[in-house]
């Protein structure tokens, strides 16, 4: 029997919900190993009685699943709690930080795609040039060095030695409604370059290598040979026919990677003091700011689950064979 698309959707959505709930449960079971938030919330003059009172008030003495349940119950009403560290509503803090991370992730994904595809095409077309060898070697080094080190190296070169770009922060930002953007000011654009390169370097290398291998394969296929024998210009063959056929897997992989760019911006944001979600999360872990940590982790898992869900749905819509596969 063939499963209808609707039934399939419901089933995948339910599965995603379970994944979310389990992620949250695991997160909450880990929080007590991070430490005691009360220690950071009170000055050294606090008495033991003060500590007990605050712990009781914050519900820290409850078992973790009760804390998790309370969090879920409040979250269902749109209340993510109050940040222990900042004393402000978590929703407000997250919304304030979100634009910085989204802008950084988008710019670095954009750079990675443009540069990655360009270089990928180049090394596929000219597999033996000296430039190809240089690009491949440098990209290998880029992938194997930790993000932290790349960031610091870029800072020392472009900020300290050359004084071209700022070493930290977002520069001047412009407020558009609740969205703060750094992309409309000169200092904001200057500030985003180094972190975006640092964050996107890995993805760029990956896209480049993916394009290269796909493209080499396509260039050897029959229809390209036919195109050549028809006497089409080389440029048209490479970009019109070959590249177009390479892009489908590239786009799929890049889309999935966007989630991890946002999730793993933590280190880049810390190195560049980029005021986004990643920096917020690191500060929260050190302070044991449970409401922020919980909300951030739920947000990230929601994002991953949604991206996967959308990709799955798109696949099913494109390829009916998958639906039959599910039913049998």
């Amino acid at each position, binding site marked *: 029997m063939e499963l209808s698309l609707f039934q399939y959707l419901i089933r995948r959505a339910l599965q995603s919900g379970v994944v979310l709930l389990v992620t949250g449960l695991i997160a909450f079971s880990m929080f007590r190993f991070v430490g005691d*938030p009360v220690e950071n*919330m009170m000055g*050294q003059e*606090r008495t033991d009685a003060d500590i007990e009172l605050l712990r009781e008030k914050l519900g820290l003495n409850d078992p973790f699943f009760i804390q998790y349940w309370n969090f879920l119950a409040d979250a269902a009403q749109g209340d993510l709690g109050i940040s222990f560290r900042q004393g402000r509503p978590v929703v407000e803090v997250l919304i304030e930080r979100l634009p910085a991370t989204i802008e950084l992730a988008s710019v670095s994904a954009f750079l990675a795609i443009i540069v990655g595809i360009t270089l990928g095409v180049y090394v596929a077309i000219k597999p033996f040039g000296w430039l190809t060898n240089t690009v491949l070697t440098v990209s290998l080094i880029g992938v194997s060095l930790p993000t932290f080190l790349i960031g610091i190296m870029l800072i020392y070169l472009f900020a300290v030695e050359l004084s071209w770009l700022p070493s*930290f922060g977002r520069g001047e930002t412009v407020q558009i409604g609740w969205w703060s953007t750094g992309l409309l000011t000169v200092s904001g654009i200057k500030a985003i370059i180094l972190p975006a390169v640092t964050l996107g370097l890995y993805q760029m290398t990956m896209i480049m290598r993916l394009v290269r291998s796909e493209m080499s394969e396509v260039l050897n296929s029959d229809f390209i040979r036919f195109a050549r024998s028809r006497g089409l210009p080389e440029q048209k063959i490479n970009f019109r026919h070959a590249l177009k056929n390479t892009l489908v897997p590239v786009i799929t992989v890049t889309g999935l990677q966007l989630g991890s760019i946002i999730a793993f911006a933590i280190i880049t944001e810390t190195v560049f003091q980029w005021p986004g979600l990643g920096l917020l999360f690191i500060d929260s872990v050190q302070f044991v700011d449970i409401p922020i940590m919980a909300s951030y982790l739920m947000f990230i898992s929601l994002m991953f689950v949604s991206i996967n869900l959308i990709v799955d749905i798109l696949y099913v819509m494109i390829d009916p064979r998958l639906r039959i596969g599910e039913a049998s």
Partner: protein
Amino acid sequence: MKKRVIFLSSLLFALMADTAIAKTLNWARAGDSLTMDPHAQNEGPTHALSSQIYEPLIQRDMSGKQVAALATAWGPSKQNPNVWAFKLRQGVKFHDGAEFDSEDVVFSFQRAMSANSDMKELLSSVKEVRAAGKYGFEIETNGPNPIMAANLNDIYIMDKGWAEANKAVKVQDVKGGENTFAANNTNGTGPYKLVSRVTDSRTVLEANTNYWGKGQFPLEITKINYTPIKNAATRVAALLSGEVDFIQDVPVQDLSRVDNDSGLKVIKAPQNRVIFLGLNQGDDDLKTDNIEGRNPFADVRVRQAMNIAINRAAIQKVVMRGQSIPAGVAMPPFVNGWTKELDAIPAGGIDDAKALMTKAGFGDGFSITLNCPNDRYINDEAICQAAVGMLGQIGIKVNLDAKPKAQHFPLIGKLQTDFYMLGWGVPTYDSEYIFNFLVHTKGDKRGSWNGTRYSNPEIDKKIVSLASETNLQTRDTTIAEIWAQIQQDLLYLPIHHQVLNWGMANKVQTTVSPDDRARFKYFTIK
């Protein structure tokens, strides 16, 4: 062409004129202030920012000396020893133009003493606060409190009318779900006004042109951009590149790099913070040692041996790269009660220490776990690692357990560690503060940081007597007696006093304050 030259030169002139008036300081340190509510968090970086905007009755200058702020005169009342009387400064205006008077002081003290306040412990001896006329204020304590003034340096004064109008009467409560107006907005009497603030990103302050202290303080900086930069390498890079002019925490490994830069300098001074190791000497048996039925730390000879074995000079040289002052007493050198003799490094060598261990019956040594923070003090984990090696020389096999501060400090409070590192700063600059928290038997009111299980009723009695001893000479004698006993009983093994390293552009002129508080009104700038 001519037009363009005129335009350019006028632009240049405008720019020069602008820089002549506006002197901006770009300031960075590792952490941000947690809240703008001056009574919600008793924490260093939070007070450091608040103190530019809000003022206490009495404040400390850059050397740590108490000077007049919103009070011009103060002292215990002659009629009643339980009362401290304050004369308030006249003609002071809040940033919004409201007038400052005793009503605001009473309001602010009551707010600082309220349930959600993090400052209430500093005022725990207070029975009542009241106005005495428009420019008089009185604090009545439960019994005389001779050092009341020392507790007031971080009790900031808010405007009553402003707080009421903006529903900021209550201190922000992290659980109550409130985000009070005062957590994001300010209205103080201080030398700087808050212009804008994005938490963890950027806070902009501007000089208060109506400041009462004009002419008394340099007040040369007209604008402050404050950015927390968490990553130490980035912070140093920002200073080297000229993006910031002043950072408060230069990592010891980067000191020479900063100092060797022609446009920068590092200035240093001992900090009001001493680092030491605490020992569980009170329990009958230790959980983490390998000796059954006996507590090796209970024997004073073992403690003496350990005190000798810790080579402070080596820690200073190797771990701290010279940036520490070896200590012989768990008390920073600024504190009332400190003497050179107390702070002398214990004499003796490894052989003496070994002999003491043998005499105590631990010639074969024992093993023990040392709990240590790894993100609180300068090179904390590395100091503990060094101590592990040094104690190994006298047969004590130390297992190091280094954790982030949020996991480390609860161990001390909950008595779950037998051997631990702790650092202590003394905001009141008086020994009583150390005794209350670190020496007195652990109880509801006092001894909350005493993880040594040390309990000496005689000492406890003396500590309690300090709170109400009005004769300062008698009080100092008692303090000296208590220290003599502590040194004899070796509650703590002192390691060193931390040194502060402030890095800055050459154009910035200041001295380093022992409490790591940059008081910008004292800064001069070229």
